[in-house]
């Protein structure tokens, strides 16, 4: 304890290493359990609904307002350089490559990741996880795997949805406020949208999904203590997931740039 006070960074990195190690072992165990029967189908379907269907409204609002703000900001900036006509291209590129995947992931980290951590944390402190083990069920297969797979499927879909709604938000501003014609806006989107941007965005969202599910489940399963521990791990899961999403965004963008 004394050493931790003197050397807080040492303690921080030690904890980080420990937690990363636990998360990796957990992830490995969950992936290795894929062939094990029975596959937890019911929890998986439930998680598809929890992670996906129930996130639609928050993703809709996020995408819509992002698209609208992008249109206004883009118009103001581009007008200075006489490039207001490129507004459709600016919205498309910003949304598909960057803001769609990142904002959808951050929203999902706050909604779904927090849910994973608090649910699993509660199960730990009420001994439900111990009960699973006592009944010969691997919590990594029964609890982690359905959540991981559900998010790997749903976050890319939510990202596509966020992109589509964002483009619609941009359309509303461009057509009804900035006096572009519908045809002009649609054509500028069509011209600027490349398959590389779409695929790049989906690759990002797939990576983000893995990060959010792994961190949130791992932090939740590490809850120790009573109900206050559940609150602690929930906050922790959101903070770490969000930071890791932003960090991974930089790495994946760099990698995609190299491959392009």
């Amino acid at each position, binding site marked *: 304890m004394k050493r931790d006070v003197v050397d807080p960074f040492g303690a921080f990195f030690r904890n980080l290493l420990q937690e990363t190690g636990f998360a990796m072992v957990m992830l490995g165990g969950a992936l290795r359990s894929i062939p094990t*029967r*029975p596959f937890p189908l019911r929890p998986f379907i*439930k998680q598809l609904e929890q992670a996906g269907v129930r996130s639609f409204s928050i993703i809709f609002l996020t995408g819509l307002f992002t698209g609208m703000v992008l249109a206004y900001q883009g118009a103001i900036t581009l007008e200075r350089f006489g490039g207001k006509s490129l507004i459709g291209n600016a919205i498309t590129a910003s949304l598909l490559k960057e803001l769609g995947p990142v904002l959808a992931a951050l929203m999902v980290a706050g909604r779904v990741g927090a849910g994973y951590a608090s649910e699993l944390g*509660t199960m730990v402190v*009420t*001994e*439900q996880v*111990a*009960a699973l*083990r*006592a*009944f*010969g*069920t*691997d919590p990594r297969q*029964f609890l982690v795997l359905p959540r991981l797979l559900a998010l790997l499927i749903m976050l890319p879909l939510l990202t596509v949805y966020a992109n589509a709604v964002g483009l619609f938000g941009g359309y509303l501003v461009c057509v009804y406020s900035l006096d572009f014609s519908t045809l002009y806006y649609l054509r500028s989107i069509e011209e600027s949208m490349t398959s590389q941007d779409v695929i790049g965005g989906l690759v990002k969202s797939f990576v983000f999904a893995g990060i959010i599910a792994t961190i949130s489940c791992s932090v939740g399963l590490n809850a120790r203590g009573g109900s206050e521990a559940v609150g602690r791990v929930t906050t922790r899961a959101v903070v770490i997931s969000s930071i890791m999403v932003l960090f991974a965004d930089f790495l994946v963008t760099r990698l995609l740039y190299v491959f392009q």
Partner: protein
Amino acid sequence: MTAVDIDLRNVEIGFGGPPVLHEFNLSVPSSQTLVVLGESGSGKSTMLGAILGLIRPQRGEVEVFGERVDALSERQLHPVRARIGMVFQYGALFDSETVAENVGFRIRQQPRFDAARFEREVQEKLEFVGLAEFRDRLPGELSGGQKKRVAIARALVGDPALMLYDEPTTGLDPITARKVLEVIRRIREEFGTTSIVVTHELHYAYYIADRVILIRNGRVVFDGTPEAFRAADDPYIVEFRSMEAE
């Protein structure tokens, strides 16, 4: 010679601080109901965790049905755990599953789901604990005593040879607690199941125990019959009895 179901030898378990169990030795023969007494934090629940293989000792050996559970992997532990029914302190029922789904959880987790066996065992075990009509309720809709009884029904699926109970009567009123104890007694009488009951409620211990041990600071400080415990004049035991009587 009586078969021994559980054998803990020189077990030491700690969680960073002073050891919770220290040079802990315990042998439990088949069909015995052992009541484990001790203050909060004395190591009672840790001992149950070690028997189930949920907690690994730093030193010593834990043998259950002749298998060294402290040396087995999670996968290797499955057949041993299949012979053990565990009732957790607060029931540990799965919140999102109905009573029937909780009770039949073990059957649903088999590689091939046997629907007929599921129905039969769930009905049989719920009838045994007197809660057959609650099968479609969620745990949140049950009282504390009902949750404990559902947890017992769930632990009984597969007819385990060993039942472990962690504080089965804590937080229950005397009448509900008596109902839970009746169920524990009937399990022993009807199935001859070996039982370990962890509690700090002495009067309930006298009601069900064949044998009583008292744990203090991670060691067994008394081991004998309930009558011998009642008559013991060791100052700590006298104090423990008097505290419980208050």
